[in-house]
Protein backbone atom coordinates (compact mmCIF):
# COMPACT_ATOMS: atom_id res chain seq x y z
CA UNK A 1 0.00 0.00 0.00
CA UNK A 2 1.22 3.43 -0.78
CA UNK A 3 -0.27 6.17 1.33
CA UNK A 4 -0.36 9.73 0.21
CA UNK A 5 -1.54 12.71 2.15
CA UNK A 6 -4.98 13.66 0.87
CA UNK A 7 -5.78 16.61 3.10
CA UNK A 8 -5.28 17.93 6.59
CA UNK A 9 -7.06 20.01 9.19
CA UNK A 10 -5.28 22.55 11.27
CA UNK A 11 -6.72 22.02 14.71
CA UNK A 12 -5.71 25.48 15.80
CA UNK A 13 -8.53 27.80 14.88
CA UNK A 14 -7.11 31.19 15.69
CA UNK A 15 -3.66 31.42 14.21
CA UNK A 16 -1.60 33.62 16.44
CA UNK A 17 -3.77 33.13 19.48
CA UNK A 18 -1.38 31.50 21.93
CA UNK A 19 -4.20 29.87 23.83
CA UNK A 20 -5.41 27.95 20.82
CA UNK A 21 -2.17 26.34 19.64
CA UNK A 22 -2.31 22.89 20.96
CA UNK A 23 -1.46 19.24 20.51
CA UNK A 24 -4.19 17.01 19.17
CA UNK A 25 -4.16 14.48 21.97
CA UNK A 26 -6.85 12.02 20.97
CA UNK A 27 -9.64 11.68 18.46
CA UNK A 28 -12.68 9.51 17.73
CA UNK A 29 -14.22 8.84 14.36
CA UNK A 30 -17.53 7.68 12.93
CA UNK A 31 -18.97 7.86 9.44
CA UNK A 32 -19.69 11.59 9.63
CA UNK A 33 -17.41 13.24 12.13
CA UNK A 34 -13.99 13.44 13.64
CA UNK A 35 -14.07 14.52 17.30
CA UNK A 36 -10.62 15.71 18.32
CA UNK A 37 -9.48 16.74 21.78
CA UNK A 38 -6.72 19.27 22.10
CA UNK A 39 -4.31 20.06 24.88
CA UNK A 40 -6.26 23.27 25.46
CA UNK A 41 -9.06 21.11 26.90
CA UNK A 42 -11.46 21.73 24.03
CA UNK A 43 -13.03 19.07 21.84
CA UNK A 44 -13.51 20.12 18.25
CA UNK A 45 -16.00 18.37 16.03
CA UNK A 46 -15.18 18.29 12.33
CA UNK A 47 -17.25 17.13 9.38
CA UNK A 48 -15.25 14.12 8.23
CA UNK A 49 -15.90 14.57 4.50
CA UNK A 50 -15.69 18.34 4.20
CA UNK A 51 -12.92 18.65 6.81
CA UNK A 52 -14.58 21.70 8.32
CA UNK A 53 -15.09 22.61 11.92
CA UNK A 54 -18.72 22.22 12.96
CA UNK A 55 -18.66 22.54 16.73
CA UNK A 56 -16.51 23.17 19.76
CA UNK A 57 -17.27 21.40 23.04
CA UNK A 58 -16.13 23.40 25.97
CA UNK A 59 -16.29 22.17 29.54
CA UNK A 60 -13.31 20.14 30.61
CA UNK A 61 -10.97 22.06 32.86
CA UNK A 62 -7.99 19.79 32.59
CA UNK A 63 -6.30 17.40 30.18
CA UNK A 64 -8.62 15.20 28.13
CA UNK A 65 -7.28 11.68 27.81
CA UNK A 66 -9.74 9.66 25.77
CA UNK A 67 -12.95 10.10 23.84
CA UNK A 68 -15.46 7.54 22.66
CA UNK A 69 -18.11 7.97 19.99
CA UNK A 70 -21.27 5.94 20.19
CA UNK A 71 -23.66 6.00 17.27
CA UNK A 72 -27.37 6.00 18.01
CA UNK A 73 -30.10 4.37 15.96
CA UNK A 74 -31.60 7.70 14.93
CA UNK A 75 -28.41 8.81 13.19
CA UNK A 76 -27.26 10.96 16.07
CA UNK A 77 -24.27 10.09 18.20
CA UNK A 78 -23.00 10.74 21.68
CA UNK A 79 -19.41 11.46 22.60
CA UNK A 80 -17.91 10.47 25.92
CA UNK A 81 -14.75 12.14 27.12
CA UNK A 82 -12.65 11.56 30.24
CA UNK A 83 -10.24 13.96 31.86
CA UNK A 84 -7.80 14.82 34.59
CA UNK A 85 -10.53 17.15 35.84
CA UNK A 86 -12.02 14.01 37.40
CA UNK A 87 -15.05 13.89 35.17
CA UNK A 88 -16.43 11.88 32.32
CA UNK A 89 -18.64 14.06 30.15
CA UNK A 90 -21.26 12.94 27.71
CA UNK A 91 -22.06 15.20 24.77
CA UNK A 92 -24.87 15.06 22.26
CA UNK A 93 -23.47 15.49 18.76
CA UNK A 94 -26.57 17.02 17.11
CA UNK A 95 -27.04 19.58 19.87
CA UNK A 96 -23.31 19.92 20.53
CA UNK A 97 -24.23 20.12 24.18
CA UNK A 98 -23.31 18.45 27.42
CA UNK A 99 -25.95 15.96 28.55
CA UNK A 100 -24.32 14.25 31.52
CA UNK A 101 -21.32 14.66 33.78
CA UNK A 102 -19.98 11.89 35.98
CA UNK A 103 -17.78 13.03 38.83
CA UNK A 104 -15.10 10.88 40.40
CA UNK A 105 -12.50 11.43 43.11
CA UNK A 106 -9.52 10.97 40.83
CA UNK A 107 -8.21 11.75 37.38
CA UNK A 108 -9.77 9.51 34.76
CA UNK A 109 -7.34 8.31 32.13
CA UNK A 110 -9.40 5.81 30.18
CA UNK A 111 -12.99 4.77 29.59
CA UNK A 112 -14.99 2.18 27.71
CA UNK A 113 -18.68 1.64 27.19
CA UNK A 114 -20.91 -1.39 26.83
CA UNK A 115 -24.61 -0.60 26.47
CA UNK A 116 -25.21 1.71 29.41
CA UNK A 117 -22.28 0.42 31.45
CA UNK A 118 -19.29 2.70 31.66
CA UNK A 119 -15.94 1.46 32.91
CA UNK A 120 -13.41 4.06 34.02
CA UNK A 121 -9.77 3.97 35.02
CA UNK A 122 -9.65 6.50 37.88
CA UNK A 123 -6.08 6.81 39.05
CA UNK A 124 -5.32 3.22 40.16
CA UNK A 125 -8.95 2.19 40.54
CA UNK A 126 -11.29 0.53 38.10
CA UNK A 127 -14.82 1.88 38.43
CA UNK A 128 -17.91 0.40 36.81
CA UNK A 129 -20.79 2.85 36.47
CA UNK A 130 -24.40 2.54 35.31
CA UNK A 131 -25.24 5.53 33.11
CA UNK A 132 -28.97 5.01 33.39
CA UNK A 133 -29.14 4.49 37.15
CA UNK A 134 -26.40 7.13 37.50
CA UNK A 135 -24.56 5.16 40.15
CA UNK A 136 -21.35 3.25 40.70
CA UNK A 137 -21.86 -0.49 40.43
CA UNK A 138 -18.44 -1.73 41.48
CA UNK A 139 -14.98 -0.44 42.28
CA UNK A 140 -11.78 -2.44 42.06
CA UNK A 141 -9.04 -0.78 44.07
CA UNK A 142 -6.61 -3.58 44.75
CA UNK A 143 -5.53 -4.51 41.25
CA UNK A 144 -3.16 -1.64 40.53
CA UNK A 145 -0.91 0.68 42.50
CA UNK A 146 -0.43 3.31 39.80
CA UNK A 147 -2.55 5.06 37.18
CA UNK A 148 -4.60 2.83 34.95
CA UNK A 149 -3.79 4.02 31.44
CA UNK A 150 -6.23 1.93 29.44
CA UNK A 151 -9.36 -0.03 30.25
CA UNK A 152 -11.55 -1.97 27.83
CA UNK A 153 -14.42 -4.41 27.87
CA UNK A 154 -13.53 -7.58 26.03
CA UNK A 155 -15.10 -7.23 22.55
CA UNK A 156 -16.56 -10.74 22.62
CA UNK A 157 -17.46 -11.00 26.27
CA UNK A 158 -18.50 -7.83 28.10
CA UNK A 159 -18.42 -9.61 31.45
CA UNK A 160 -14.63 -9.46 31.13
CA UNK A 161 -12.60 -6.28 31.46
CA UNK A 162 -8.89 -5.73 30.88
CA UNK A 163 -6.88 -2.88 32.40
CA UNK A 164 -3.22 -1.90 32.03
CA UNK A 165 -1.31 0.50 34.23
CA UNK A 166 1.85 2.49 34.85
CA UNK A 167 2.64 -0.19 37.44
CA UNK A 168 3.33 -2.59 34.56
CA UNK A 169 0.48 -4.96 35.27
CA UNK A 170 -2.28 -6.22 33.00
CA UNK A 171 -5.36 -7.26 34.95
CA UNK A 172 -8.28 -9.29 33.73
CA UNK A 173 -11.56 -9.04 35.62
CA UNK A 174 -14.51 -11.41 35.52
CA UNK A 175 -17.64 -9.48 36.47
CA UNK A 176 -19.47 -12.74 37.10
CA UNK A 177 -17.45 -13.08 40.30
CA UNK A 178 -19.21 -11.26 43.09
CA UNK A 179 -16.16 -10.95 45.31
CA UNK A 180 -14.01 -8.01 44.17
CA UNK A 181 -10.77 -9.81 44.87
CA UNK A 182 -11.80 -13.08 43.25
CA UNK A 183 -13.00 -11.11 40.23
CA UNK A 184 -9.37 -10.39 39.34
CA UNK A 185 -8.90 -13.71 37.60
CA UNK A 186 -5.61 -13.05 35.87
CA UNK A 187 -2.66 -10.73 36.37
CA UNK A 188 0.14 -10.48 33.84
CA UNK A 189 3.32 -8.63 34.66
CA UNK A 190 4.34 -6.45 31.76
CA UNK A 191 7.48 -5.41 33.65
CA UNK A 192 7.52 -1.92 32.14
CA UNK A 193 4.99 0.87 32.74
CA UNK A 194 2.23 0.38 30.20
CA UNK A 195 0.65 3.19 28.22
CA UNK A 196 -1.84 1.24 26.12
CA UNK A 197 -3.06 -2.13 24.94
CA UNK A 198 -5.45 -3.58 22.39
CA UNK A 199 -7.10 -6.86 21.47
CA UNK A 200 -6.41 -8.80 18.31
CA UNK A 201 -7.04 -12.24 16.88
CA UNK A 202 -10.11 -13.78 15.34
CA UNK A 203 -11.79 -13.92 18.75
CA UNK A 204 -9.82 -11.12 20.33
CA UNK A 205 -7.94 -13.76 22.23
CA UNK A 206 -4.62 -11.92 22.18
CA UNK A 207 -3.48 -8.53 23.35
CA UNK A 208 -0.54 -6.31 22.54
CA UNK A 209 0.84 -3.90 25.13
CA UNK A 210 2.87 -0.75 24.59
CA UNK A 211 5.02 0.87 27.23
CA UNK A 212 5.96 4.46 28.03
CA UNK A 213 9.44 3.14 27.35
CA UNK A 214 8.47 2.17 23.83
CA UNK A 215 8.42 -1.56 24.32
CA UNK A 216 5.98 -3.91 22.63
CA UNK A 217 4.78 -7.26 23.95
CA UNK A 218 2.19 -9.80 22.85
CA UNK A 219 0.10 -11.89 25.24
CA UNK A 220 -2.35 -14.74 25.08
CA UNK A 221 -5.20 -13.93 27.44
CA UNK A 222 -6.58 -17.42 28.02
CA UNK A 223 -3.32 -18.99 29.13
CA UNK A 224 -1.83 -15.81 30.56
CA UNK A 225 1.42 -16.29 28.68
CA UNK A 226 3.59 -13.70 27.06
CA UNK A 227 4.06 -14.80 23.48
CA UNK A 228 6.68 -12.21 22.59
CA UNK A 229 8.61 -9.31 24.07
CA UNK A 230 10.31 -7.40 21.33
CA UNK A 231 13.22 -5.99 23.34
CA UNK A 232 14.66 -2.64 22.33
CA UNK A 233 12.47 -2.55 19.25
CA UNK A 234 13.21 1.08 18.36
CA UNK A 235 16.87 0.20 18.08
CA UNK A 236 16.19 -3.03 16.20
CA UNK A 237 13.99 -1.34 13.60
CA UNK A 238 16.34 1.62 13.23
CA UNK A 239 19.26 -0.67 12.50
CA UNK A 240 17.37 -3.06 10.28
CA UNK A 241 15.57 -0.58 8.05
CA UNK A 242 17.91 2.42 8.39
CA UNK A 243 15.17 4.81 9.41
CA UNK A 244 15.33 6.29 12.87
CA UNK A 245 12.44 5.12 15.02
CA UNK A 246 11.84 7.11 18.19
CA UNK A 247 8.46 5.89 19.43
CA UNK A 248 5.44 3.75 18.71
CA UNK A 249 1.97 5.14 18.11
CA UNK A 250 -0.22 2.10 18.03
CA UNK A 251 -0.74 -1.48 16.89
CA UNK A 252 -3.66 -2.06 14.58
CA UNK A 253 -5.39 -5.27 13.58
CA UNK A 254 -7.30 -6.11 10.43
CA UNK A 255 -9.74 -8.92 11.15
CA UNK A 256 -10.54 -10.18 7.66
CA UNK A 257 -6.94 -10.72 6.64
CA UNK A 258 -5.73 -11.42 10.21
CA UNK A 259 -2.94 -8.91 9.73
CA UNK A 260 -1.24 -7.06 12.55
CA UNK A 261 0.43 -3.70 11.99
CA UNK A 262 2.75 -1.56 14.06
CA UNK A 263 2.76 2.22 13.61
CA UNK A 264 6.12 3.72 14.52
CA UNK A 265 7.40 7.25 14.18
CA UNK A 266 10.27 9.68 14.46
CA UNK A 267 10.24 13.00 16.25
CA UNK A 268 10.01 14.82 12.90
CA UNK A 269 6.52 13.48 12.24
CA UNK A 270 7.22 10.62 9.85
CA UNK A 271 5.30 7.41 10.39
CA UNK A 272 6.42 3.96 9.35
CA UNK A 273 3.99 1.06 9.20
CA UNK A 274 5.30 -2.45 9.75
CA UNK A 275 3.55 -5.76 9.27
CA UNK A 276 4.09 -8.12 12.23
CA UNK A 277 4.37 -11.76 11.28
CA UNK A 278 2.41 -13.65 13.93
CA UNK A 279 4.39 -16.85 13.56
CA UNK A 280 7.99 -15.64 13.47
CA UNK A 281 7.33 -12.22 15.07
CA UNK A 282 9.47 -10.69 12.36
CA UNK A 283 8.58 -7.20 11.22
CA UNK A 284 8.56 -6.15 7.60
CA UNK A 285 8.10 -2.73 6.06
CA UNK A 286 4.56 -2.19 4.86
CA UNK A 287 4.05 1.49 4.17
CA UNK A 288 4.83 4.97 5.44
CA UNK A 289 3.13 8.29 6.07
CA UNK A 290 5.52 11.03 5.07
CA UNK A 291 5.29 14.79 4.97
CA UNK A 292 2.05 14.90 6.83
CA UNK A 293 3.29 15.99 10.23
CA UNK A 294 6.18 17.79 11.85
CA UNK A 295 5.95 16.52 15.40
CA UNK A 296 5.04 13.43 17.42
CA UNK A 297 1.96 11.64 16.09
CA UNK A 298 -0.27 10.69 19.02
CA UNK A 299 -3.10 8.82 17.31
CA UNK A 300 -3.80 6.92 14.15
CA UNK A 301 -7.11 5.53 12.97
CA UNK A 302 -7.33 3.19 10.00
CA UNK A 303 -10.78 2.80 8.53
CA UNK A 304 -10.92 -0.79 7.32
CA UNK A 305 -13.89 -0.17 5.06
CA UNK A 306 -12.77 2.93 3.19
CA UNK A 307 -9.06 2.27 3.89
CA UNK A 308 -8.68 5.93 4.70
CA UNK A 309 -6.11 6.59 7.39
CA UNK A 310 -6.36 9.51 9.82
CA UNK A 311 -3.51 10.73 12.01
CA UNK A 312 -3.25 13.46 14.63
CA UNK A 313 -0.17 15.06 16.04
CA UNK A 314 1.45 17.42 18.51
CA UNK A 315 1.93 19.72 15.52
CA UNK A 316 -1.77 20.59 15.86
CA UNK A 317 -2.77 18.87 12.62
CA UNK A 318 -5.16 16.09 11.73
CA UNK A 319 -4.11 14.46 8.47
CA UNK A 320 -6.11 12.27 6.11
CA UNK A 321 -4.36 9.69 3.98
CA UNK A 322 -5.47 7.66 0.98
CA UNK A 323 -3.89 4.67 -0.67
CA UNK A 324 -2.73 5.72 -4.09
CA UNK A 325 -2.34 2.16 -5.35
CA UNK A 326 -5.47 0.16 -4.97
CA UNK A 327 -8.79 0.75 -3.30
CA UNK A 328 -9.09 -2.59 -1.50
CA UNK A 329 -6.98 -4.24 1.15
CA UNK A 330 -5.73 -7.11 -0.94
CA UNK A 331 -2.76 -8.36 0.90
CA UNK A 332 -2.05 -11.89 1.94
CA UNK A 333 -3.80 -13.27 4.95
CA UNK A 334 -1.63 -14.09 7.92
CA UNK A 335 -1.66 -17.56 9.43
CA UNK A 336 -3.04 -17.89 12.93
CA UNK A 337 -0.81 -17.73 15.96
CA UNK A 338 0.33 -21.14 17.14
CA UNK A 339 0.21 -21.55 20.87
CA UNK A 340 2.19 -24.25 22.55
CA UNK A 341 -0.14 -27.14 23.49
CA UNK A 342 1.21 -27.21 27.05
CA UNK A 343 0.09 -23.72 27.83
CA UNK A 344 -3.55 -24.43 27.30
CA UNK A 345 -3.94 -26.88 30.13
CA UNK A 346 -3.87 -24.86 33.27
CA UNK A 347 -6.34 -22.12 32.79
CA UNK A 348 -10.03 -21.82 32.28
CA UNK A 349 -10.21 -18.26 31.08
CA UNK A 350 -12.09 -18.70 27.89
CA UNK A 351 -13.75 -16.09 25.80
CA UNK A 352 -16.28 -18.03 23.83
CA UNK A 353 -17.87 -16.50 20.83
CA UNK A 354 -20.57 -15.22 23.11
CA UNK A 355 -23.06 -12.87 21.65
CA UNK A 356 -22.47 -9.67 23.59
CA UNK A 357 -26.08 -8.66 23.17
CA UNK A 358 -27.34 -11.76 24.95
CA UNK A 359 -29.58 -10.96 27.87
CA UNK A 360 -29.89 -14.53 29.04
CA UNK A 361 -27.50 -14.35 31.97
CA UNK A 362 -29.33 -15.75 34.93
CA UNK A 363 -27.06 -13.96 37.35
CA UNK A 364 -26.57 -10.43 36.18
CA UNK A 365 -22.84 -9.71 36.35
CA UNK A 366 -23.58 -6.04 36.69
Amino acid at each position, binding site marked *: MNFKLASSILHTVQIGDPDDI*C*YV*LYFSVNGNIVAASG*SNNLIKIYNRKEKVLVNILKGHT*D*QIHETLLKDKTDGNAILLSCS*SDKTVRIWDMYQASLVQTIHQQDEIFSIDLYQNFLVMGCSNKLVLYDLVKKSVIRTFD*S*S*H*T*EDITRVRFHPNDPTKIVSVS*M*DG*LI*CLYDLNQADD*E*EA*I*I*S*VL*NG*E*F*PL*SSFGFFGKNSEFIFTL*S*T*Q*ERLAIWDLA*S*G*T*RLKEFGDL*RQILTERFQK*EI*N*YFVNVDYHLESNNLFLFAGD*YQGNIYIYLINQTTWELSEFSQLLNGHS*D*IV*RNIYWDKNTLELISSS*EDSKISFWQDSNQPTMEFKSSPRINIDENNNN*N*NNNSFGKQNPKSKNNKSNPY
Partner: protein
Amino acid sequence: MSGSKISSDQVRQSVATIFAEAAANKRGFCETVELQVNLKNYDTKKDKRFSGQIKLSTVTKPKFSVCVFADQQHCDEATKIGAEFMDIEALKKIGPKNKKAIKKLSKKYDAFLASETILRQVPKLLGPGLNKVGKFPLLLSHSEDMATKISEVKSTVKFQLKKVLCLAVAVGHIQLTEREIATNVIQSINFLISLLKKGWQNIKTLYIKSSMGRSFRIY
Protein backbone atom coordinates in the same frame (compact mmCIF):
# COMPACT_ATOMS: atom_id res chain seq x y z
CA MET B 1 21.42 11.38 17.25
CA SER B 2 23.39 14.39 18.48
CA GLY B 3 26.51 13.63 20.44
CA SER B 4 26.48 13.56 24.19
CA LYS B 5 26.88 16.94 25.81
CA ILE B 6 28.84 15.63 28.76
CA SER B 7 32.00 13.63 28.79
CA SER B 8 32.53 10.56 30.89
CA ASP B 9 35.69 12.21 32.25
CA GLN B 10 33.62 15.04 33.59
CA VAL B 11 31.28 12.59 35.25
CA ARG B 12 34.13 10.59 36.75
CA GLN B 13 35.69 13.69 38.18
CA SER B 14 32.49 14.55 40.00
CA VAL B 15 32.06 10.97 41.14
CA ALA B 16 35.62 10.95 42.46
CA THR B 17 34.88 14.03 44.54
CA ILE B 18 31.65 12.48 45.80
CA PHE B 19 33.54 9.38 46.88
CA ALA B 20 36.25 11.41 48.55
CA GLU B 21 33.74 13.47 50.49
CA ALA B 22 31.68 10.40 51.40
CA ALA B 23 34.83 8.68 52.69
CA ALA B 24 35.69 11.74 54.73
CA ASN B 25 32.21 11.83 56.28
CA LYS B 26 31.51 8.17 56.82
CA ARG B 27 27.89 7.35 57.54
CA GLY B 28 26.34 4.36 59.24
CA PHE B 29 24.88 3.05 55.99
CA CYS B 30 25.93 2.58 52.41
CA GLU B 31 25.03 5.85 50.70
CA THR B 32 23.15 5.77 47.40
CA VAL B 33 24.42 7.84 44.51
CA GLU B 34 21.70 9.66 42.68
CA LEU B 35 21.36 11.40 39.33
CA GLN B 36 19.00 14.38 39.47
CA VAL B 37 17.52 15.62 36.24
CA ASN B 38 15.77 18.96 35.81
CA LEU B 39 13.75 19.21 32.64
CA LYS B 40 12.73 22.13 30.46
CA ASN B 41 10.49 22.54 27.41
CA TYR B 42 8.36 19.70 28.66
CA ASP B 43 4.74 20.10 29.68
CA THR B 44 3.39 17.41 32.00
CA LYS B 45 -0.12 18.35 30.89
CA LYS B 46 0.34 17.47 27.28
CA ASP B 47 3.63 15.76 26.56
CA LYS B 48 3.78 11.99 26.60
CA ARG B 49 4.54 10.29 29.89
CA PHE B 50 7.91 8.66 29.96
CA SER B 51 8.26 7.15 33.40
CA GLY B 52 9.89 3.78 33.43
CA GLN B 53 12.90 1.82 34.46
CA ILE B 54 16.46 1.40 33.30
CA LYS B 55 18.53 -1.73 33.54
CA LEU B 56 22.04 -0.62 34.44
CA SER B 57 25.34 -2.42 34.04
CA THR B 58 25.93 -2.85 37.73
CA VAL B 59 23.81 -3.77 40.69
CA THR B 60 22.61 -0.64 42.40
CA LYS B 61 20.68 -2.22 45.23
CA PRO B 62 22.89 -4.81 46.93
CA LYS B 63 20.53 -5.38 49.84
CA PHE B 64 17.56 -5.96 47.55
CA SER B 65 15.94 -9.27 48.44
CA VAL B 66 14.30 -11.47 45.87
CA CYS B 67 12.19 -14.58 46.37
CA VAL B 68 11.39 -17.07 43.63
CA PHE B 69 8.04 -18.85 43.44
CA ALA B 70 9.63 -21.93 41.97
CA ASP B 71 8.48 -24.99 40.09
CA GLN B 72 10.47 -28.17 40.55
CA GLN B 73 13.22 -27.22 38.14
CA HIS B 74 13.56 -23.74 39.59
CA CYS B 75 13.58 -25.11 43.14
CA ASP B 76 16.66 -27.11 42.23
CA GLU B 77 18.30 -24.16 40.54
CA ALA B 78 17.54 -21.88 43.47
CA THR B 79 18.99 -24.34 45.94
CA LYS B 80 22.11 -24.54 43.84
CA ILE B 81 22.70 -20.81 43.74
CA GLY B 82 21.48 -20.11 47.25
CA ALA B 83 18.49 -18.07 46.18
CA GLU B 84 15.43 -17.82 48.40
CA PHE B 85 12.40 -19.63 47.04
CA MET B 86 8.97 -21.02 47.79
CA ASP B 87 7.38 -23.92 45.98
CA ILE B 88 3.72 -24.22 45.09
CA GLU B 89 2.90 -26.21 48.22
CA ALA B 90 4.28 -23.44 50.39
CA LEU B 91 2.14 -20.91 48.51
CA LYS B 92 -0.95 -23.09 48.75
CA LYS B 93 -0.40 -23.29 52.49
CA ILE B 94 -0.72 -19.52 52.78
CA GLY B 95 -3.97 -19.36 50.85
CA PRO B 96 -5.63 -16.31 49.30
CA LYS B 97 -7.66 -15.37 52.34
CA ASN B 98 -4.79 -15.24 54.80
CA LYS B 99 -4.22 -11.49 54.60
CA LYS B 100 -1.77 -11.40 57.47
CA ALA B 101 0.54 -14.01 56.01
CA ILE B 102 0.40 -12.46 52.56
CA LYS B 103 1.21 -9.06 53.97
CA LYS B 104 4.11 -10.53 55.91
CA LEU B 105 5.41 -12.20 52.77
CA SER B 106 5.09 -9.01 50.76
CA LYS B 107 7.07 -7.09 53.36
CA LYS B 108 9.79 -9.69 53.67
CA TYR B 109 11.03 -9.37 50.09
CA ASP B 110 11.60 -6.44 47.76
CA ALA B 111 10.66 -8.36 44.63
CA PHE B 112 9.37 -11.70 43.45
CA LEU B 113 10.05 -13.90 40.47
CA ALA B 114 7.87 -16.81 39.47
CA SER B 115 8.03 -19.82 37.16
CA GLU B 116 5.53 -19.61 34.35
CA THR B 117 3.15 -22.28 35.63
CA ILE B 118 3.05 -20.73 39.09
CA LEU B 119 2.83 -17.14 37.86
CA ARG B 120 -0.56 -17.79 36.27
CA GLN B 121 -1.90 -19.12 39.52
CA VAL B 122 -0.75 -16.28 41.75
CA PRO B 123 -4.12 -14.44 41.72
CA LYS B 124 -5.84 -17.65 42.77
CA LEU B 125 -3.18 -18.62 45.31
CA LEU B 126 -2.56 -15.26 46.94
CA GLY B 127 -5.31 -12.92 45.78
CA PRO B 128 -4.29 -9.32 44.98
CA GLY B 129 -2.05 -8.97 48.06
CA LEU B 130 1.07 -8.58 45.96
CA ASN B 131 -0.69 -6.26 43.48
CA LYS B 132 -1.55 -3.93 46.35
CA VAL B 133 2.09 -3.41 47.31
CA GLY B 134 3.36 -3.15 43.77
CA LYS B 135 5.30 -6.41 44.02
CA PHE B 136 3.51 -8.73 41.67
CA PRO B 137 6.03 -11.37 40.54
CA LEU B 138 7.98 -11.12 37.33
CA LEU B 139 8.20 -14.03 34.98
CA LEU B 140 11.25 -16.29 35.28
CA SER B 141 11.31 -18.51 32.25
CA HIS B 142 13.30 -21.72 31.88
CA SER B 143 15.34 -20.21 29.09
CA GLU B 144 16.75 -17.60 31.49
CA ASP B 145 19.52 -18.09 34.01
CA MET B 146 18.11 -17.48 37.48
CA ALA B 147 21.18 -15.79 38.92
CA THR B 148 21.38 -13.45 35.94
CA LYS B 149 17.70 -12.56 36.23
CA ILE B 150 18.00 -11.83 39.95
CA SER B 151 21.02 -9.68 39.23
CA GLU B 152 19.05 -7.85 36.54
CA VAL B 153 16.24 -7.13 38.96
CA LYS B 154 18.80 -5.69 41.36
CA SER B 155 20.30 -3.54 38.60
CA THR B 156 17.03 -2.04 37.46
CA VAL B 157 16.19 1.43 38.65
CA LYS B 158 12.95 3.32 38.30
CA PHE B 159 12.55 6.88 37.21
CA GLN B 160 9.30 8.68 37.59
CA LEU B 161 8.20 12.13 36.59
CA LYS B 162 5.25 13.40 38.50
CA LYS B 163 3.89 16.92 38.37
CA VAL B 164 7.14 18.85 38.76
CA LEU B 165 9.84 18.88 36.16
CA CYS B 166 12.49 16.98 38.02
CA LEU B 167 13.23 13.35 38.50
CA ALA B 168 15.84 11.34 40.34
CA VAL B 169 17.45 8.05 39.39
CA ALA B 170 19.45 5.92 41.80
CA VAL B 171 22.55 5.12 39.78
CA GLY B 172 24.55 3.21 42.33
CA HIS B 173 26.09 3.40 45.77
CA ILE B 174 29.43 4.47 47.21
CA GLN B 175 30.80 0.96 47.37
CA LEU B 176 30.90 0.68 43.61
CA THR B 177 33.88 1.92 41.64
CA GLU B 178 34.01 5.39 40.11
CA ARG B 179 33.98 3.82 36.70
CA GLU B 180 30.86 1.79 37.42
CA ILE B 181 28.97 4.81 38.68
CA ALA B 182 30.11 6.93 35.74
CA THR B 183 28.94 4.21 33.34
CA ASN B 184 25.56 3.99 35.05
CA VAL B 185 25.19 7.78 34.94
CA ILE B 186 25.93 7.98 31.23
CA GLN B 187 23.66 5.01 30.47
CA SER B 188 20.81 6.61 32.39
CA ILE B 189 21.22 9.97 30.70
CA ASN B 190 21.37 8.47 27.22
CA PHE B 191 18.31 6.40 27.87
CA LEU B 192 16.29 9.35 29.17
CA ILE B 193 17.35 11.46 26.20
CA SER B 194 16.02 8.80 23.83
CA LEU B 195 12.57 9.16 25.36
CA LEU B 196 12.47 12.95 25.12
CA LYS B 197 11.51 14.43 21.80
CA LYS B 198 13.83 17.39 22.14
CA GLY B 199 16.67 15.30 23.51
CA TRP B 200 19.26 17.51 25.17
CA GLN B 201 16.96 20.52 24.64
CA ASN B 202 14.68 18.98 27.22
CA ILE B 203 17.42 18.87 29.85
CA LYS B 204 17.91 21.98 31.94
CA THR B 205 20.45 20.73 34.48
CA LEU B 206 21.97 17.49 35.72
CA TYR B 207 23.36 16.88 39.19
CA ILE B 208 24.79 13.88 40.95
CA LYS B 209 25.03 13.43 44.66
CA SER B 210 25.35 10.85 47.39
CA SER B 211 22.52 10.50 49.91
CA MET B 212 24.10 12.70 52.53
CA GLY B 213 26.56 14.62 50.40
CA ARG B 214 26.25 17.79 48.38
CA SER B 215 25.18 18.02 44.75
CA PHE B 216 27.60 18.31 41.88
CA ARG B 217 26.40 19.84 38.68
CA ILE B 218 27.45 17.89 35.60
CA TYR B 219 25.37 19.73 33.01
